């Protein structure tokens, strides 16, 4: 346990100093600042105004950029160390593979999760200072969703990182996964529906397997419980799951998916040659 926390702590310190972390934090913090400057909190769309409106836009952007940020910044954590022979030296000390792998994962999780949540908290503080009321339910749900999303893509990134030997391949593979998941949010599914080769129910089921899609629908469901903006798809989803159950699934499923891939990555890391 001592070594596990030591690895997490050192990885966290190393990441916080890295340039990518600075850019990562600036992107999410800057986004919030930009929304305030643009007067998003004063605007009103579909009955949403103030902080709720700001958080809604924030989460919509986060859906797209958070996965790729997590993938490109963490996919090299094992493969990059392997490439540069850092792994060879660091693992020449009596550290178990379990401690090293899971310690690194915990360190990276904190690094990718905190800036996104901190940006939301800063938004709330600014909003309150400007006299807006705090949309607690949205804030808690979004924190849960960001947690689940971070877990899902971190697990996938660590799996890729353990699987491939070169960090370039790892990076390429992570881009491919992101593009596929992004395409399956709309483009590919719409074309499948247009061609009517698959039943609508199957297509919707496939789309809900995508953590980015389930994240998006859950985010919408909080301000639009009937999912009216989604059209007929809403009937399928709400016929199968009550809104609260759907929200719970949208947090639990990506978390499980991330844990599953992270564990798979650990098995690969343990059973393959380390260097």
């Amino acid at each position: 346990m001592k070594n596990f926390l030591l690895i997490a702590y050192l990885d966290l310190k190393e990441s916080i100093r890295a340039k990518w972390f600075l850019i990562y934090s600036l992107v999410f913090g800057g986004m919030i600042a930009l929304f305030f400057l643009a007067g998003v909190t004063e605007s009103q769309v579909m009955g949403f105004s103030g902080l709720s409106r700001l958080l809604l836009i924030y989460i919509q952007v986060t859906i797209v950029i958070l996965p790729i940020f997590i993938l490109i910044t963490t996919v090299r954590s094992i493969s990059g160390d392997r490439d540069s022979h850092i792994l060879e030296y660091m693992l020449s000390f009596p550290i178990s593979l379990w401690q090293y792998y899971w310690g690194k994962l915990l360190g990276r999780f904190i690094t990718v999760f905190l800036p996104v949540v901190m940006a939301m908290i800063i938004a709330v503080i600014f909003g309150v200072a400007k006299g807006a009321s705090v949309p607690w339910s949205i804030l808690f749900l979004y924190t849960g969703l960001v947690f689940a999303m971070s877990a899902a893509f971190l697990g996938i990134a660590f799996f890729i990182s353990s699987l491939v030997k070169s960090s370039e391949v790892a990076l390429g593979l992570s881009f491919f996964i992101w593009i596929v998941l992004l395409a399956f949010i709309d483009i590919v599914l719409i074309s499948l529906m247009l061609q009517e080769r698959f039943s609508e129910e199957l297509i919707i089921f496939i789309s809900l397997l995508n953590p980015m899609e389930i994240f998006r629908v859950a985010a919408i469901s909080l301000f639009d419980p009937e999912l009216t903006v989604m059209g007929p798809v809403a009937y399928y989803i709400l016929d199968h799951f009550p809104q609260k159950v759907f929200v719970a699934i949208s947090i639990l499923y990506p978390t499980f998916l991330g844990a599953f891939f992270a564990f798979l990555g650990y098995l690969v890391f343990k059973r393959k040659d380390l260097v």
Partner: protein
Amino acid sequence: MIQIKNVTKKFGSHVSLDNVSCEMYEGDSIALMGANGAGKTTLVRTIMGYYHPNSGEVSVYGKSPLKQRTEVLEEISFVPQLPPPIKLSVDELLEYIVKSSGVEREKIADFASQMKLDISKNMKKSFFKLSGGMKQKLLIAISLAKRSSIIIYDEPTANLDPKAREDFYRLLKQNEHGKTLLFVTHRLEEVKDLINRQIYMDLGKIVSDERVEY
């Protein structure tokens, strides 16, 4: 004691270690030699549990480096040929080593100063920003401070100037008693005062293994 029994390691169709068997005892100071691609580094990495052999087994004091890696690595100090570009600061790297291996920080500083390296001035610097010689000296100081019963050096003096090499060999001579020393080297001249055994490898096999006295 290191026992290597009929170890074969392949990478695709390339056989890197071909049914290698060997034993290394306490007090052995071994120069492991051979041309590039002979299998020296693969053998070292197999001893340290980095590689899973296709067949055969390795044990260090009766323990498997794959199944009991932490217990085995408590017995081993290792210095690679080229210091890796670790991004931790020197202070953080030492914290990692002190906490994971129970090495005393003062001992590292002491060995480093005997190699003319004052680590107190470089604590906040990233390890990879130190000069090649400073990095190598620090890794050597760590390996000596760890007080392991097996020391493995893969071309440890590649980055050192002649004076630093002299310091290194002097320190090693003072601290080698009762240990197993394994040098992967191309420069026999440099280590011949330290070694009592020479192993030559070629095409993944041990082609000669003899006791020597210079």
